[in-house]
């Protein structure tokens, strides 16, 4: 069973998924039915070294840079409105293909132009982010953004990290103010 995270929860999921090989991160939300700007949520991924920084800007995967590390990380495309059922954006990560100097993979979600559009996760219906074991499709963790991150506009969802030759997933679930640009800069990306 997936661990449903509450605010600030920090859960180690190694027991749920021993020998994790590949994961998919899914981001989903409902299309806006009221008047006003669309809700455009964006998934992003950061490949970090031991120092917690990207090795280069190419390690920042988002809607304008869909692949990294020779395809080990692949963003399957930007969804601008939330149209469609289930996961509206998906990023897949093949852990075995990641270079040895990538120590950690961080997953985040941001609202595009949240400040200008005066939006937060609580205004978006049924917004969630989840991580699924690509082998078998078991959901490892899920965060209900609409309910538990309602006043946030960006959130670091979780991170995969190396531990004793294995990859483990740690849920972070912490808000971040400032949006995608400042978040990327905090990991050493030049944006």
């Amino acid at each position: 069973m997936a661990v449903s995270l509450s605010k600030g929860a920090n859960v180690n999921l190694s027991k749920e998924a021993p020998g994790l090989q590949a994961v998919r991160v899914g981001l989903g939300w409902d299309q806006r039915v009221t008047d006003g700007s669309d809700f455009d949520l964006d998934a992003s991924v950061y490949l970090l070294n031991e120092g917690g920084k990207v090795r280069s800007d190419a390690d920042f995967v988002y809607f304008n840079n869909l692949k990294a590390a020779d395809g080990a990380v692949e963003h399957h495309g930007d969804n601008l409105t939330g149209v469609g059922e289930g996961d509206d954006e998906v990023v897949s990560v093949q852990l075995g293909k990641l270079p040895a100097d990538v120590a950690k993979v961080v997953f985040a979600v941001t609202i595009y132009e949240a400040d200008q559009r005066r939006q937060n996760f609580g205004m978006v219906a049924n917004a969630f982010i989840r991580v699924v074991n690509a082998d078998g499709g078991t959901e490892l963790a899920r965060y209900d953004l609409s309910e538990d991150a309602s006043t946030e506009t960006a959130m670091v969802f979780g991170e995969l990290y190396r531990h004793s030759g294995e990859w483990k997933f740690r849920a972070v679930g912490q808000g971040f103010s400032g949006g995608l640009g400042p978040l990327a800069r905090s990991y050493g990306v030049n944006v």
Partner: protein
Amino acid sequence: MSISLAKGANVSLSKEEPGLANILIGLGWDARATDGEDFDLDASAFLLAETGKVRGDHDFIFYNQLKSSDGSVEHTGDNRTGAGDGDDEVIKVDLGRVPADIHKVAVVVTIHEGESRRQNFGMVQNAFMRIVNEATGREISRYDLSEDYSVETALIFGEVYRHGGEWKFRAVGQGYQGGLAPVARNFGVNVG
């Protein structure tokens, strides 16, 4: 102390007020001080199933249908000018009597004849929605609408909803420019 919500935020009424049984949803706004037509705001409630739609037109509670068929939701009457301090319109909800297949009570405020009077929520001063424990009179939470850019004439002000065995309140503050009809249609009510 009452919890003031920002737009989009939510609070657990059950946690804040253990044993909560009956709530008053109070809506208020200031009477128009400037010249022109009065602001006549109308509150209505939609009893919504898990799908986000009404089960039938009887789940739409407004000035022409003041009480739900099961008696759980009751509109206490229309105020046409906003005159008077405090709540201008009140909707009572008996939480225990809300049918199990009703997931959410959405509270909508519309400006009566907003289009023809050329009025919108950006012009209305000090509009608020608050949740009061009917038994004690204590205000549990409130949402002050503070948006002077708003062009809507119909606003989903907030919603009282079930979540994990609790009742919660969310400040929604989203709406439509076309008045009550598009809101009602969105919730599955048959309107002409």
